[in-house]
């Protein structure tokens, strides 16, 4: 091998190494340590981009009609705005409201009932659910293997073009890990870049007194399974965590959702029963039911005054993060449009 060839080889290897380790997740300084172990799935621009394509591509569903983004659209804070329950393939309607996605790297539990404990594996649930994508990870892999466009992306991401379930899931996880929401007025207030109005400040104090035990700052969830006094819907009869464990103690327990980006993610609750934040305030103030056995963090109705409810909502609106919601790096990749036209 000539000297010139050696130099080219070394340069290529160095470039390859640099490109596979180069994604800066920019962890917000006021956030706790990441729960996700990045050592098991080191981020790279190429893999994040592959994950983004997969997230927006209906190729993951049985009839190529439903993508992850169908129910988790970026401009809705990655929720399914204005849909109580989401619909999957063949217009089949599910049993739960699509949860908003953000700050997933800090979550130890996924799905409303905490069914999955790892972000990588969570995607198996919607891919396989007959009312969501109605497909299988093996079917997804087979389709991608037959797709030259995706094979090139796998090559860029993993240094060979092999497609596997592991790679599909890790790429999806990488894109979702980049969905960090930390630029709301609340975040700016913490960084000394903004000040709350008097009403927002009053709402913040009320929040810390009544809500923070479960919707813990700065992620606005403790990501634990709790009952919140919501009377069960007679039609859906959703028992929450009990559906996974079969234990009576888990009846009506659901994962506490984050409260970030609420203006974009209505309706609210696991079954999307509340269209407005006022209705949510009314529930916590007057409607907490003993039937769904809330824990000690919520012993009963909060009995808030009208002013307190408005103040609380005023604070909650400071958790809207438009920079996150309209971040082009999270949006539909135009490359996909070109590729589907072919």
């Amino acid at each position, binding site marked *: 091998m000539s000297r010139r060839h050696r130099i080219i080889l070394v340069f290529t290897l160095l470039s390859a190494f640099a490109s596979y380790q180069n994604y800066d997740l920019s962890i917000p300084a006021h956030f706790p340590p990441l729960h996700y172990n990045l050592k098991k799935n080191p981020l790279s621009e190429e893999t994040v981009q592959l994950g983004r394509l997969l997230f927006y591509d209906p190729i993951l569903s049985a009839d190529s009609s439903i993508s992850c983004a169908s129910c988790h659209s970026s401009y809705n804070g990655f929720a399914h705005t204005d849909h109580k329950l989401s619909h999957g393939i063949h217009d089949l309607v599910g049993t739960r409201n699509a949860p908003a996605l953000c700050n997933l790297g800090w979550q130890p539990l996924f799905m409303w009932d905490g*069914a999955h404990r790892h972000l990588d594996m969570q995607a*198996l649930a919607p891919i396989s*659910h007959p009312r969501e994508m109605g497909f299988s990870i093996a079917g997804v*892999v087979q389709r991608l293997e037959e797709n030259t466009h995706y094979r090139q992306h796998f090559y860029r991401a993993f240094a060979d073009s092999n497609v596997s*379930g*592991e790679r599909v899931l890790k790429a999806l996880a990488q894109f979702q890990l980049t969905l960090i929401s930390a630029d709301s007025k609340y975040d700016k207030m913490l960084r000394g870049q903004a000040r709350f109005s008097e009403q927002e400040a009053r709402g913040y104090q009320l929040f810390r007194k009544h809500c923070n035990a479960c919707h813990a700052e700065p992620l606005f969830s403790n990501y634990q399974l709790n009952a919140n006094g919501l009377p069960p819907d007679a039609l859906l009869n959703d028992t929450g965590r009990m559906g996974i464990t079969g234990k009576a103690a888990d009846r009506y327990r659901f994962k506490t959702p984050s409260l970030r980006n609420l203006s974009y993610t209505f309706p609210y609750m696991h079954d999307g029963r509340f269209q407005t934040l006022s209705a949510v305030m009314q529930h916590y103030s007057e409607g907490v039911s003993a039937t769904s056995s809330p824990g000690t963090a919520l012993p009963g109705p909060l009995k808030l005054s009208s002013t307190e409810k408005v103040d609380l909502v005023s604070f909650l609106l400071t958790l809207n993060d438009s920079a996150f919601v309209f971040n082009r790096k999270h949006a539909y990749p135009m490359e996909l449009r070109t590729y589907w036209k072919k």
Partner: protein
Amino acid sequence: MKYPGLLLLLLPVYSSAQQTLSVQPQWRGNLLETGRFYPGPQSGDSLRIDVLRFYLGVLPSGEAINHSYHLIDLAHPESMHIPLKPEMAQTPFTLLLGVDSMTQMDGAGGGALDPTQGMYWTWQSGYIHLKLEGILHKAEGRNIPFSYHIGGFEGKDNTLQRIPADQSGILKPRLDILFRKLDPALLPEVMSPGTKAVMISRAWKDCFSSEP
């Protein structure tokens, strides 16, 4: 420690002087065959095993060599022979029936642990350690399909089992032992973690015992 070697004798160690570990499922001392009916738990009943898939974990002692998982599948004879890495030839190791909880929490696995293998639950967390499916033919003519997807890795629902020490390089799980303790007519399906899954995982472990 005065006699560190004694510690090794106390561990459930599998000697790996051989280069291959073979799995030969049995029914009363004979090789198990798919499509064949065997005597069932009750007199006059017969039983056929259509699916037998399970995870076998090889855990070398010492941190230098990573542990590995293998998916054994009755439908794929090549999966019954596990080549051991050369560096493991002189390394004692233990065997697991299932996937340990650390690996379960590591995220998406590759190779034998790739979710495309169909051994990861989609509706909840966790690998299925053992898939066992078949038909019980009752004496009076009724057919009862049975299906056991055994897994669970948390707390008292943990179905991970260790296999007793062996020196032969051949594992001979005896399925007849399991069906002495498990009547598909009484329990045709176990598809989620819990006490029934733990009970079957223990019976599954007993299949690997050298005791008759």
